[in-house]
């Protein structure tokens, strides 16, 4: 299945677009998404400062709520990655 990862903050380094399409095994959850993201970063963005991003990021559902690691993703679902924040 494929999901759309909407990029914010430092995660924008992952793509020139606002979102990244990610292929995942069926019935994947957020924990699996973190694993896949780690692989993408180590393979394609090893020189960036994103190594810790899969561990430190939160994820927002389409309802703009934080979802936990057990949250089951659906095919074509749009999820926002929320790197550590720091406005002001």
């Amino acid at each position, binding site marked *: 299945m494929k999901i759309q990862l909407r990029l*914010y903050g*430092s995660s924008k380094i992952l793509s020139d677009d606002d979102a990244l399409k990610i292929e995942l095994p069926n019935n994947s959850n957020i924990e699996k998404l973190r694993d896949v993201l780690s692989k993408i970063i180590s393979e394609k963005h090893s020189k960036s400062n994103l190594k810790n991003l899969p*561990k430190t990021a939160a994820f*927002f559902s389409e309802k703009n709520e934080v979802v936990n*690691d057990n949250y089951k993703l659906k095919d074509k679902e749009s999820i926002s990655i*929320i790197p*550590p*924040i*720091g406005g*002001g």
Partner: protein
Amino acid sequence: MTLHIALVKTEEEKISSEKAKKFITSEKNGAESIFVGKVRNENDGKKVTAVTYDAHDQTVIKSFESICQKAKNKFDKNAKIFLEHAKGYAPVGQISILIAVGAGHRDEAFKICRYILEEVKKQSPIWKKEHYTDGKEEWLPGHSLRPKKEVK
């Protein structure tokens, strides 16, 4: 109306302290407190030319409403609050955040201002990318919103 909150797109508009002062003015209030955060020209020994602010718009607005409402409930239910944050490219000297509070007394006005600033930093999904004089740029580290019980 006692609350004004907004994310201001820097390419369209600038945050204005005059607008904030007008909004919070009331004969019922004996104190006004205004905090203005600006882009500075140095951070961690690096010379900064500008900051780009990114934001998850809907959640930021939701968090601003919640933070301001809690501040009113905690310190002064009749306080007037103005909160704006920049989104987009902001050169050195430009206002990044403005919090203005009109309250009955000085203590409440100061406390609400400080409370809002600290909670925005902890709760509102906003990110900063600094641009440096040598042409490099860097996203700054921040506060993780991942549920603490999940972090191994």
